[in-house]
């Protein structure tokens, strides 16, 4: 075995953090497009208004969606058991997300090619579905990680699944779905308010403030429910943090209030929910005061805080099993090999900074408000 300059425990922690960063990256970048998609028929009512919104995100949404593709690829490469158990376990939910996401590229591209009103309004609703459904279902899936998913692993580590799609729609899962939708709608509203004019921006501010308030309340409620009412999971045996990735070698107990344990152990973790709540409050205030850049920064901070809260609360769990808690996937037993984690870290260090630089450059080239006049100049406009 060649020597790897980073130990297995550190690599696993880094990849757990990178998983969070990639998901936060998707929620901030791709999430703005999902949020704007969910707002499309409401914030923009005429064809001209809708074209402005579509051309606002048109030049950049494809790059933004790669955060999701990369997130999926990184889970596959760094956390194969998680990729295997979650994507197959949440099968129908994943199908719903995929069917909705399929509508987006074609919706953007096909809508403007024909000027018929029915054609265009059909694609507007398709784009609404393409934003709304993933925004909710991703949240529902994360919520179900707190409840635990009904899967088991046999001796060959083959996952079997005892639940169905409707099992995901439990009250806590739905609550998290609404938090997810709310935070992305807040974020999308902040972007619209900053980059459009007059009536559209005005409506976006209204929707954004309502969404920020609602998300604040729902996130707070989710915190109370998960910390004080839900049955949480706790590893009760000593886990070898550098051991082979085999989830079957531990014991896990289901304890009411176990999701509080990390905050008792590491009080600094409380900063994540505080950032989430603070970001939402900041977005509300900034939208009220027409401070658009501050609103975008606040909604991004809210997304960061909310997703970080979920990750930190669950730690070290990635995907607890309600069917056989001992088969739960954790940071210490569901990663890929030390060598693969290291290779993937090097690849990430090489390419991610470049991605950030050229993405920023593209946003800078496309900066400014989107107006009808600007649309007329470009034959490729949506």
């Amino acid at each position, binding site marked *: 075995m060649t020597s790897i300059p980073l130990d297995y425990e550190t690599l696993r922690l880094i990849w757990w953090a990178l998983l969070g960063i990639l998901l936060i990256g998707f929620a901030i970048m791709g999430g703005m497009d999902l949020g704007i998609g969910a707002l499309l028929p409401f914030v923009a009512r005429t064809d001209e208004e809708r074209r402005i919104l579509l051309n606002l995100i048109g030049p950049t949404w494809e790059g933004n969606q790669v955060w999701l593709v990369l997130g999926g*690829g990184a889970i596959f490469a760094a956390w194969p058991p998680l990729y295997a158990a979650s994507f197959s376990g949440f099968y129908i939910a994943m199908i719903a997300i995929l069917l909705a996401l399929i509508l987006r590229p074609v919706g953007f591209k096909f809508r403007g090619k024909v000027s018929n009103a029915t054609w265009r309004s059909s694609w507007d609703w398709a784009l609404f579905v393409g934003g709304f459904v993933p925004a909710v279902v991703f949240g529902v899936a994360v919520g179900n990680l707190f409840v635990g998913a009904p899967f088991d692993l046999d001796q060959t580590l083959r996952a079997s699944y005892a639940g169905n799609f409707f099992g995901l729609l439990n009250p806590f899962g739905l609550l998290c779905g609404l938090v997810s939708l709310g935070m992305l709608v807040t974020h999308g509203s902040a972007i619209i308010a900053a980059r459009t004019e007059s009536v559209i921006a005005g409506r976006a501010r209204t929707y954004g403030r309502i969404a920020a308030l609602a998300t604040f309340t729902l996130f707070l409620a989710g915190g109370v429910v998960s910390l004080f009412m839900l049955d949480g999971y706790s590893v009760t045996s000593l886990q070898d943090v550098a051991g082979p990735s085999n989830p079957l070698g531990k014991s896990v107990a289901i304890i009411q209030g176990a999701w509080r344990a990390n905050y008792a152990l590491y009080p600094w973790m409380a900063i994540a929910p505080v950032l989430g709540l603070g970001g939402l409050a900041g977005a509300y205030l900034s939208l009220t005061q027409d401070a658009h850049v501050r609103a975008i920064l606040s909604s991004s901070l809210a997304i960061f805080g909310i997703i970080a809260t979920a990750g930190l609360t669950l730690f070290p769990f990635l995907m607890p099993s309600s069917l056989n808690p001992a088969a739960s996937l954790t940071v210490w037993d569901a990663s890929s090999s030390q060598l693969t984690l290291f290779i993937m870290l090097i690849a990430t260090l090489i390419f991610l900074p470049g991605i950030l630089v050229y993405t920023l450059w593209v946003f800078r080239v496309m900066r400014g408000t989107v107006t009808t006049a600007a649309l007329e100049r470009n034959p490729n406009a949506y």
Partner: protein
Amino acid sequence: MIDPVVVELSRLQFAATAMYHFIFVPLTLGLSFLMAIMESVYVMTGRPIWRQMTLFWGTLFGINFAMGVATGIVMEFQFGMNWSYYSHYVGDVFGAPLAIEGLMAFFLEATFVGLFFFGWDRLSRVGHLAVTWLVAIGANFSALWILIANGWMQNPVGAQFNPDTMRMEVIDFVAVIFNPVAQAKFVHTISAGYVAGSVFVLAISALFLLQGRHVELARRSMVVAASFGLASAISVVVLGDESGYVATEQQKMKIAAMEAMYETEKAPAALTLFAIPGADGRPAYQVQLPFVLGLITTRSLDRDLPGITELTQRAAGRIQNGIIAYAALDAIKANPGDAAARATFERTSPDLGYALLLKRYRDDVQNATGEQIALAALDTVPDVWPLFWSFRIMVGIGLFYIAFFALWFWKASRLTLTSNRALLWVAVVTLPLPWIAIEVGWIVAEYGRQPWVVEGVLPTFYAASGLHFWDLVISLSFFMLLYSVLLAIMVWLMVRIVKAGPHSKSVLDVDDDAYFPDRPLAIHLEPAQ
């Protein structure tokens, strides 16, 4: 064990979604380079016609690209959704190229494709040209990493089974990247995409010439497509030959099945041009070219090519060896400290996958009967006749395109593109051929790999998720419905755009300098008036 109906439906869904995705990918690969070439000529000469060409083909590219993105995200997620045991079993190896594809290639392509469409009036000419090239390069790097992943499924190098984690793990990532199968497949596949792109441009341009519309745009497009297409068609066939040579080393059974070669061919092996299957499924009548197959596959005249019968016997031996590995693995699971079992496993683990073939017949494979081993060995034979004919269709079309592009290249260099209307019609009506070749090529590569999902390592039926029948019915019917509707809309839109022609947008007529406000052009080869 997994419901066999679920396995078959999962295979059908993967094949359908992959083949559908692969309608759009080749055109993206080919058109992006053709557009980059056209825009390069525009920037170097400053002639607006070349920008007009870039914009026109770009509009068609955009519609195709949207379909590629829509269907591509399904591919990324389906491994986990429908092939969860595969994802667990080989994710340590297979996941990395997919993730690197996102990091290195897809981010580049998808970030800049927006600027390609929206950046015309915000970038300098050279700046926009750079963006177009980055889209083309991103698309091609993307293909590289996907084929590194796929190449590993054909020839699983650089990895070994870890009994403690019950999966394949990387031991040599450099071997995974420089897998000879992956490298040959990469150039073969992107070249096929370039041929598809060139045929697309050539066919639509030929239609314009026949109709006497947009003649200037069509002639220039044909010159670019004919040159690029000729080089690409030669590359497809040469690298296809390289793939065949590499496969002879790694996937002997696939070669034997493609050739319907039941009995071992003594050196130098003959190539079967055509064959008619008899009642027993074996060739009853065939036309052969002596020596040729031996030359193609072994590049020698003195090596035998093993036939299906012999390879089946070899597989039976590997199954017996695999049973020893499987038993040793069981012993390790029972007692992880069992050094003797670990030593046995180390020695026999390359054949573990062959023991898993027995899982179709019994769960306790250690106790397999001789009859079951014989059945499992027969399972290693792919369906011969679909492969035999798919391969011949693919090669036939590939050779046709060398002649086709050579002819058009010759006509383009003699400035006689419009001299023969019949030939122009041939260019129009043969438009679907590259896609037929590409789809049957996929069948040769992937259906020919059966029963394995990873050659010699993991049988396909053993890799599927334990989903329910209705899960698959729901997903498969939704995919088929949505995909069919979208394909119909896409073709309809493309036909509309071709009918409207490149002048459909008024902005194309604007004065060139007004279109690039206050951005002086560094390279301006037009003589000053």
